[in-house]
């Protein structure tokens, strides 16, 4: 239905020269959706005969759609699991192709009133991990947060099938530990920032691209005596920031020429400028 509507729109608006527009379906990670949209927007100028329809929904949604063959490109903020690859191969007859399109540092942020400068991964695990004992801010380096009743830590998290959630859990807790129940499991990075911005007691996490000046991102150190690293572009590129990750796009093993051309374009200087503008780190040369 959406496909028909979009096609009709294009038919009405642009195609007086009687050229048909090819539609590429692009779906997945909410972390990537803003960047993918900005790219799609720009690509209209580069190649007017190709339209890219971008939608979010989460990495799992995008990959599932690729496996079912309903999209051309799946955005994902995590690497595709081997069993997902197998399934895609079974359904589509060919292996998927993986493209690293950028890097993302997962920023941990707090309310500007909160005086904490940085935290170790262990302290994050103490706050977020199941069985962790940090319930009040005073449990973390004896911090007192002004305007926060009882110094209670309000944990802001994401719904359990978000790629950001899964990556965050793995980065601070490893593969064998759960996040503590009772966190505020919001449905988007935007909402997480909005909430922390208005709540002195809160702590949250999201992709670096979503940060705004109304919340304060803290520096993270790997161990107690390790240097505390800020989530910046430079630190994500040289991988010194402890919670940074690759962002992926997946296509069918033998993508159509137009899809292939688009994926190549995402590596161009033009596309990289957009990546930086969206707050992410351009992918290293492949």
């Amino acid at each position, binding site marked *: 239905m959406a496909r028909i509507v979009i096609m009709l729109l294009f038919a009405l608006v642009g195609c007086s020269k009687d050229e048909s527009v090819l539609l590429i379906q692009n779906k997945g990670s909410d972390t990537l959706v803003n960047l993918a949209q900005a790219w799609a927007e720009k690509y209209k100028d580069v190649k007017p005969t190709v339209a890219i329809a971008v939608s979010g929904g989460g990495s799992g949604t995008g990959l*599932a759609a690729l496996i079912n063959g309903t999209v051309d490109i799946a955005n994902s903020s995590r690497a595709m699991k081997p069993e997902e690859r197998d399934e895609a191969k079974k359904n589509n007859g060919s292996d998927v192709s993986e493209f690293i399109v950028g890097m993302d540092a997962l920023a941990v942020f707090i309310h500007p009133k909160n005086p904490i400068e940085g935290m170790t991964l262990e302290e994050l695990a103490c706050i977020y991990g199941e069985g962790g004992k940090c319930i009040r801010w005073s449990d973390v380096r004896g911090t007192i947060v002004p305007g926060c009743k009882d110094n209670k830590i309000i944990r802001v998290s994401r719904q*359990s099938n978000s790629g950001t959630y899964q990556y965050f859990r793995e980065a601070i807790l490893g593969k064998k530990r759960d996040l503590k129940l*009772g966190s*505020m*499991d919001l449905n988007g990075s935007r909402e997480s920032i909005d909430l922390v911005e208005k709540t002195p007691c809160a702590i949250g996490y999201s992709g670096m691209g979503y940060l705004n000046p109304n919340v304060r991102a803290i520096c993270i150190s790997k161990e107690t005596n390790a240097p505390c690293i800020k989530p910046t572009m430079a630190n994500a590129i040289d991988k010194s920031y402890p919670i940074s990750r690759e962002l992926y796009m997946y296509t069918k093993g033998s993508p159509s020429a137009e899809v292939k051309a688009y994926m190549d374009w995402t590596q161009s200087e033009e596309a990289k400028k957009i990546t930086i503008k969206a707050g992410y780190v351009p992918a290293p040369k492949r």
Partner: protein
Amino acid sequence: MEMKMIKTAQLSMDWRNKKSKKPTSEKIIEFLIKAGGLSSIILIIAILFFILKESFPFLVGAFNFKEFFFSPEWYPASVVKVRYGILALLVGTVMVTVLSMLIAVPLGIACAFYISEFCTPKQKELYKVLIEFLAAIPSVVWGFIAIMMINPMIINIFNEPIGLNILNASLILALMSLPLIISVGEDALRAVPEPYREAAEALGATKWEIATRVLLPAAKHGLLAAALLGVGRALGETMAVLMATGHSIQIPHSIFEPGRTLTATIAAELGESPKGGEHYQALFTIGLVLFLISFAVNLTADKLIRGRKQ
């Protein structure tokens, strides 16, 4: 002679048949109305069947009655041990619904009384438009109002650590169900025949006395229906409560603690749970529980209304 008689009888029978057959259009319309009436029943049964079909493998498999209804641990994505306990979600749903109705029903009924009995026709027009406007706000927008406006208000006024909680969600839900309660309530009041009012006025009753002693008893079934429709609205609302409750899995010990509802859980998780998987089926089982709850609410409503009629 005999032949003739038989023929006459046949003729008269033909005539009779013709008479009953004559209005074909009427028959078609009758059939369509019957089909329309039946279709809602068929739809309900089909929905129930669909939910049962999707949740059945879970119900006979991983389902553990004690864990499902009495454990507050909803951990479908656990890497250690997957657990499906909906107690916290049930408590959240009940708390939010009850509190929002405590706010919305008195306000809504009072508003319906005001619009139908106390204000001038011009005001009436204006208020009706405004209330319809209230109903047109999408629920995601309500969610943002909850996060950006009501959350800091609750933090500041009540000095609480977090403003996304049962109270916040109840306020939002109350605002969302008010238009429904008001318009159905107003319809109920308008349905009270004019002579009732005239008779009361002739006896020298004041407007207040007419409202409380004549209209309230006369329209009580309709007003009750309005309240129960509000309950249905509150039970079923998803997106706004997802954002306003804080969507946090815990049993709230006060109205200032965050919680989570059944509907919000389905909304947040169904989209990405693999179709046919255990998590997917568990979510449909929650849907079944919701179905039974609303069925029970409607049944009690029906019983209440009938009980009073007798």
